[in-house]
């Protein structure tokens, strides 16, 4: 069998040099499986429209919704217009941009397991190739629960709707949403299924945290500035804290959350992604594999939880009745589709070590929870105190360690806390904060994470996506803890909704003479 040579790379468009949109992808057909779902209307279509609004989509870009409900193209367009009116970053919707965008919006009705639906879908895509210049390029977005992934990928393969990048020709890419499995075994199975139809480099595993500007800015902060990296190690850093707090409860997702819990929902993906970005070594280039190679090294260096003593360095909590932001909040066990005796954790705190040269002995305290006082994601680097307390004999001088805080959301920014002399004849000190806020310095609202990630997929850049080994390494670290928690017959530690978690979480860090930072 002869193998065609890969297509020669096309020279970049010289007219794009210096333009705000320097990179514009080639037009493709983006097929959204699960187009009638919440993710499509709240995030995907509004993000795609905003990209069109900002001139970042190529002429001819086509979006095909695929789902079970029976819509016409026009009905789908109308529903998506309403979604954009509600959720797009660039509102109000610009009539001219929408008209043009909507011309590339189509719908195919079908069941995910129905082979003839894929035939119809393929016909539609081929028609778009002829009329819209999409040239056989395909992106399949699986906005569906993971159990549908095997059948969709199998039927795409059976209908010959997937090209092999090794053989050249137009690209095919697939985007999958978390959860990437339920544990190591299911993640491996999901990945095995993926590579029966797609090659690893065609698979884009979306973790929307990686699309956030501030998360990307972590790398810029660390590696584009000369002043931070020399201090970014065990010699100068006392400990690191990471917090992902949500003020909302499980909302309509009680059924899903019962099987997941916060560790699977947040820690395994978002929090470990943040840990790896904070702790990684400088990559040789800001490119997909060098960046992900360094991230996965951090995950491999995570110290295993001591067998039989897992609960000594972890806390699992669950919210009870309380109030959040002035509103009454019911206990997790009273939420719809939640067992009244549920042991599922809605809060997790852990003390984690990264066993490598840079971080040996530096604890990373991580916590995530629902129904906490506010929605905030925050990373704080706590530096060691000055080596010699030369002011110790003076009253009014209490020095505090420096803290570099990186606010991921909301009100994105970076602050540095340090001590300063209070003006006056005597020596008194007070902590002051030097702040950088995105909103103040750059004015404009940053693009939504999904905008960035969809664009990167169209451009074929997987730097901001999780690679197979990252996902599996994260699961292999977390699995023993999940098993230990599952075997523990005690209920989780309760905390009232609207507080910062159970008391045991405070004790976890206070045992080490430290305190949680109030984010």
């Amino acid at each position, binding site marked *: 069998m002869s193998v065609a040579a890969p297509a020669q790379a096309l020279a970049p468009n010289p007219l*794009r040099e210096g333009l705000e949109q320097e990179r514009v992808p080639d037009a493709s057909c983006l097929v959204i499986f699960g187009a009638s779902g919440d993710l499509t209307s709240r995030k995907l279509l509004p993000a795609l429209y905003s990209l069109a609004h900002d001139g970042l989509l190529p002429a*001819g870009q086509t979006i095909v919704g695929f789902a079970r409900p029976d819509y016409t193209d026009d009905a789908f367009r109308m529903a998506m217009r309403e979604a954009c009116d509600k959720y797009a970053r660039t509102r109000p919707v610009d009539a001219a941009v929408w008209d043009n965008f909507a011309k590339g919006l189509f719908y195919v009705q079908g069941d995910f397991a129905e082979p003839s639906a894929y035939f119809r879908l393929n016909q539609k895509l081929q028609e778009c190739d002829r009329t819209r210049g999409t040239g056989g390029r395909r992106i399949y977005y699986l906005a569906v629960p993971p159990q549908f992934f095997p059948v969709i990928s199998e039927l795409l393969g059976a209908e010959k709707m997937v090209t092999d990048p090794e053989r050249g020709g137009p690209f095919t890419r697939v985007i999958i949403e978390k959860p990437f499995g339920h544990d190591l075994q299911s993640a491996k199975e999901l990945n095995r299924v993926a590579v029966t139809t797609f090659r690893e480099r065609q698979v884009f595993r979306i973790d929307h945290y990686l699309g956030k500007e501030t998360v990307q800015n972590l790398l810029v902060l660390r590696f584009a500035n000369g002043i931070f990296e020399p201090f970014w190690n065990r010699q100068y850093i006392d400990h690191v804290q990471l917090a992902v707090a949500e003020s909302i409860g499980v909302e309509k997702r009680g059924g899903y959350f019962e099987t997941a819990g916060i560790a699977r929902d947040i820690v395994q993906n978002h929090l470990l992604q943040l840990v790896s970005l904070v702790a990684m070594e400088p990559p040789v280039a800001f490119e997909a594999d060098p960046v992900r190679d360094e991230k996965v090294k951090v995950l491999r260096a995570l110290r295993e939880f001591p067998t039989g003593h897992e609960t000594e360095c972890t806390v699992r909590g669950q919210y009870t009745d309380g109030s959040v932001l002035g509103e009454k909040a019911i206990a997790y066990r009273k939420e719809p589709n939640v067992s009244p005796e549920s042991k599922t954790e809605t809060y997790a705190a852990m003390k984690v070590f990264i066993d490598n040269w840079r971080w040996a002995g530096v604890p990373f305290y991580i916590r995530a929870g629902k129904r906490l006082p506010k929605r905030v994601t925050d990373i704080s680097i706590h530096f060691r105190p000055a080596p010699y307390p030369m002011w110790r004999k003076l009253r009014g001088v209490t020095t505090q360690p420096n803290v570099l805080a990186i606010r991921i959301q909301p009100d994105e920014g970076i602050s540095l806390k340090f001590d300063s002399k209070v003006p006056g004849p005597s020596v008194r000190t007070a902590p002051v904060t030097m702040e950088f806020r995105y909103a103040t310095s750059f004015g404009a609202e940053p693009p939504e994470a999904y905008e960035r990630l969809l664009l990167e997929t169209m451009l074929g850049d997987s730097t901001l996506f999780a690679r197979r080994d990252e996902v599996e390494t994260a699961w292999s670290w977390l699995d023993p803890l999940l098993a230990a928690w599952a075997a523990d017959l005690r209920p989780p530690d309760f905390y009232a909704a609207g507080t910062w978690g159970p008391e045991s979480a405070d004790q976890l860090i206070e045992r080490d003479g430290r305190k949680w930072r109030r984010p």
Partner: protein
Amino acid sequence: MSNSALEADVRVDPRAIENRLAELWRNNKEAGDDALTRAALWNVVAHTSSTELHTEASGVLGRASATVPQRAIIVRAMPAAEPEIACWISANCHLVGAGKQICSEEIAIVAGGDRIHRVPPLVNALLIPDMPVAVWWLGDLPNEHEDYVLSLLEPADRLIVDSVHFDSPADLLLVNRVAEKTTTTPADLNWIRLEEWRTATAAIFDPPDMRSRLNSIRRLRVVAATSDTELFGESVEALLYAAWISAQVGHDVDAHGKVEGVLGSIDYAIERRRQENGAGGIIHAEIQFDDGSSASIARDRDRGILAANVDGVISMPEAITRAVLQRPDELIVRQLKQAKGDQVLLKVLPIASRLAKRMER
């Protein structure tokens, strides 16, 4: 909501400007207004030569400071006025949510007669250290007083002009000389306006099958909207557009404005059309290819878009680019948000001045 105590103009002795500014903030802090933050990312020096332009600069920079906080120094230099120098200070405050305000400083320097030569050193003393400096020159560039321009530019990282006000190709050459002879990088608000046209044109050549056709351009026609005044500046956007195509595609433009490409001589037609609205902007651009087909871009004012179409052998869906009328403060903000000067503009400026020769014929 604004902070009227801070925003009021206060006349100050030029030697005491920094002290008075510090006092202003201190008084405000003592009044217990912790919801106020003083911020600056740039020093922006606006050079004006009349009361009208001074008022315009103050308004534009006041609005721009909501997005890019800055110390604004507005100079009004009037050689024909009485020989004196006077200064005022005030602040531009903007709500940023949760009752918090961000405030930027504005310093006005009004100089007349021979005192205008004292302005550059005074401006130098008022610049915030470690922050970039942009000089925004309002109105026509006085290419007959190049030394004065260069002395003001001495500390500047960027010179911002608006070539729509230029009265001759010599102004383009002066900007080009600034780029060649100094460390100041020129920037042009007209070039920012042109971005929508550049984006629309680039979009035509994004599809892989269109890319090779850049080498088969035989004719370029750009139509500029002009008013009754026939001011040279009204054609500059069209000139920059043509020069940009030539620079990026690799066409050679000789000293007389003749254009050559790989297929031989290429016809660059820059036309002027009188129009009541939108003088200075481009109305229409058309690129003709060797096979007789063409691509065109036109402004659709009603829909607020530029629409591009390719006819002939290859067709593609209509590509649109949002064409919103950009206010001067938005153009200034776009400029200040660019960390570095625009290297493409530097390539384009000398070509535009050579292409201007075609218009003189």
